[in-house]
């Protein structure tokens, strides 16, 4: 009981300290291009600059393959944060802990299979945290 109270108080205190910014994307990734160590994916591996359905993609190469990748629409606005998890690592002996999530508010999530692409060649799952409403996905459709 005491511990719960202490935790609640802490949570309230941190909320009070950053009442609005808590759910906004971190400045480092809010607009295209994000700050270092993020790098544009098509400068790291041979891929189109703009990926239909995803947008312009950046990643810190040190975090491959999981990411986070951050994706931007044609207006340079952050639209999603993506993790790419190889099927071969979805097993009892592998876990991905404490992955960064700098993108702020998540509106909805997509999880789908990808057969592979340069950078993450193995078949894998895309876990997409959308920071825009479903209708906003159209801004990266093509």
């Amino acid at each position, binding site marked *: 009981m005491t511990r719960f109270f202490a935790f609640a108080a802490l949570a309230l205190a941190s909320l009070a300290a950053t009442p609005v910014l808590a759910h906004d994307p971190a400045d480092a990734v809010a607009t295209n291009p994000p700050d270092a160590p993020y790098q544009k994916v098509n400068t790291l591996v041979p891929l189109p600059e703009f990926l239909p359905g995803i947008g312009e993609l950046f990643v810190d190469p040190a975090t491959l393959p999981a990411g986070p990748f951050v994706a931007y629409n044609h207006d340079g606005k952050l639209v999603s944060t993506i993790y790419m998890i190889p099927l071969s690592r979805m097993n009892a002996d592998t876990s991905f802990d404490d992955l960064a999530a700098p993108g702020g508010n998540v509106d909805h999530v997509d999880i789908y299979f990808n057969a592979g692409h340069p950078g993450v*060649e193995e078949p894998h799952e895309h876990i997409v945290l959308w920071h825009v409403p479903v209708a906003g996905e159209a801004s990266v459709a093509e």
Partner: protein
Amino acid sequence: MERRNFLWWGGGMAAVFSLSPRLAIGGSVVEIAMQGRPDGSKVWFDPYGVLIQPGQTVRWTNKDKGNAHTATAYALENYDHPRRMPEGAKPFDSDYLLPDESFEVTLDVPGLYDYFCLPHELSGMVGRIVVAAPEQTGFADYPDGDLNAEIIAGFPAVTDILARGSLQKDE
């Protein structure tokens, strides 16, 4: 020029087409598209099995807007892969093709040419070309101990290629 030839043949020879598909494509460039679903969940060569004549040219074009692909022959020279080409044939490798980029190769030595897409081999993106002079026979599949089962399953059967000339996969 070659294209016009092909069209001209197409009109008059339609009746013979089904009997001798290799006559119909003789001399033309054979096109193979690199394809993918928009979400990248499936990728493939279209067609993934083709029959051509010695000296004919094959051209691959990446028609997948969200991915890069390669057409890379099975050969030790190509990333240490087992050889699956006729003796005396030179290995080919397109390197990465971005959307709308093409690569072509002319194949002279008769036999079976198996090839893969470098980033998508594990997803079964492989293809087969049979180079055969008219009426040439005696082609057999490569023994299948050299590659894992998922990849082997991706190849069309030689007999199907010989019978039908061109084979497509379901999307």
